[in-house]
């Protein structure tokens, strides 16, 4: 039995990289940037959901001009002085350059079809959406902001898991976010989760699955252990939809699969149901 742990896969790529990021890995249709943007990064031929960055995601969900970002000043430290192929600090700087984000989570206040909510949206492009101290802290603050303002928190996840480079402190972001969600629940406010491809490891094993309502995008991978690890340990042939949203729905793990174009109206409906303030 291998001693390989399985909760973390921080590769930057959720799946084998396609020849070009604008080529659909499923049906090989190719799109221009503006076409993808118009279609919310959904392949118009086959429905494949391309990865969606945090800022366009927010823009696609909220009422224009309604988003006020919070905790923009938080940056990761390097508590371990971690060095693998490159120093962690260098990786952080590079990710910030590449994404224009301070870390893998953006939080803030927003309105959707006139209903207010707190919003927390992950960005896989920032170090594989991995959860370190900053993601944990921002998610916690988003819980508190929602609790204090008396409105639901909507979390859109996309993550390879805990951020290895922060070592055991990254693991501590699991109980940290769970504790924050429980504080939110005690305040009587809802957590609404939307899992985008992929939501794995430590994020799946903490706040992402604790939503009052749990949604997923079509074909999103939502497994605690990655397929590669499971394959390696069990030596079994994996089912075709291993860990995918469809399998999770069949096995009762989520409430609904919502295609991206329906996400905004669905969340709007949920905000009405959870009596979010207007």
């Amino acid at each position, binding site marked *: 039995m291998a001693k390989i*742990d399985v*909760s973390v896969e921080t*590769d930057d790529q959720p799946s084998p990289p396609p020849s070009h990021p604008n080529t659909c890995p499923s049906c090989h249709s190719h799109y221009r940037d503006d076409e993808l943007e118009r279609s919310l990064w959904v392949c118009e031929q086959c429905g494949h959901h391309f990865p969606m960055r945090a800022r366009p995601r927010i823009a696609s969900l909220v009422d224009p001009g309604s988003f006020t970002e919070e905790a923009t000043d938080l940056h990761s430290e390097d508590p371990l002085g971690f060095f693998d192929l490159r120093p962690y600090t260098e990786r952080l700087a590079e990710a910030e350059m590449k994404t224009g984000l301070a870390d893998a989570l953006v939080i803030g206040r927003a309105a959707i079809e006139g209903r207010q909510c707190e919003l927390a949206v992950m960005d896989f492009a920032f170090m594989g959406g991995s959860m370190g*101290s900053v993601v944990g802290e921002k998610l916690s603050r988003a819980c508190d902001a929602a609790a204090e303002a008396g409105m639901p928190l909507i979390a859109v996840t996309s993550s390879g898991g805990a951020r290895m480079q922060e*070592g055991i402190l990254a693991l501590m972001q699991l109980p940290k976010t769970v504790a924050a969600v429980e504080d939110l629940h005690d305040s009587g406010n809802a957590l609404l989760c939307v899992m985008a491809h992929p939501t794995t490891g*430590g994020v*799946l*094993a*903490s706040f992402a699955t604790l939503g009052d309502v749990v949604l997923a995008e079509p074909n999103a991978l939502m497994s605690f252990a990655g397929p590669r690890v499971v394959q390696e340990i069990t030596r079994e042939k994996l*089912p075709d939809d291993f860990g995918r949203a469809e399998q999770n729905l069949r096995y009762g793990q989520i409430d609904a699969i919502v295609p991206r174009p329906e996400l905004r109206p669905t969340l709007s409906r949920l905000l009405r149901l959870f009596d979010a303030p207007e």
Partner: protein
Amino acid sequence: MPPSEHELRLRERLGRLRSLPLLGGARISGELERLQRQIARIGEEATDEEIWRKVELARHDDRPYTLDYVERLLDDWFELHGDRALGDDGAMIAGLGKLEGRTVVLVGQQKGRDIHERASRRFGMPNPEGYRKAWHAMELADRHGFPVISLVDTPGAYPGVVAEQHGQGAAIARSQAVMARLTVPAVACVIGEGGSGGAIALALADRVLMQENAIYSVISPEGCAAILWRDAGQAKKAAAAFRPDAVHCLELGVVDEIVPEPHGGAHIDHDMAARLLGHALRESLAELDGIPGDDLRRRRRARFRSLGVFA
């Protein structure tokens, strides 16, 4: 490196520790002192070799497992089986026992001693049923006002197809949520491998202890090496990079106290290891005595919400 330099680095760290946000929240100054004493007792930071030695000790075949401690520490032990839904996971132990005359609920992962038991207990890697069994037992504890003791010893949650189908990630999350809601005292101790999500599922406690030669990490050294260098053989290098040893965890505020082991490691003398663990558990429970349930819960959440380093 000469000891004096170690000493210096250690002092410096302790100094930093005092000002870090990770020691804010529920922690009180008396604890800093205890922490200081502990670091002084351990003496010096581990070298790469020493860290790897701890990884080996934490995984030692003769290391005492959860049931070895149960046998030595608890009277009237009654094991609870089953998750009331789907199965009875041998990788997880749950039960009731008397710790010095006081009823507690104990949960913990369980590795197997012989080949057969190792397979049936899945090397201490629980399925969702295991976590469900544990949280069922913890809810029983909460209903009846029994303190919860959890012993953490797992390479990680089991990475199986069926485990995923039955919601491994959600089970780990829910187990933590149950602990975050407890209104009874909860003390966790990492007694061997504290492997990632599979471990933290049982460790959202008021006090988190760690045995001297246990390890606690976000990922196994092999897993880390496989990702970073595509070579699991680089495990030793990986371990040196993220330092899963007890002193480091103590310095980071991730654990509150290091539980000493018999000279040479817990596997040398199970009875002595159990006495030392028992003492630490009772001391921690005593510290939590009399704190109202709501306060316990609030402080427990605050403790974990304070963990992390950022600017």
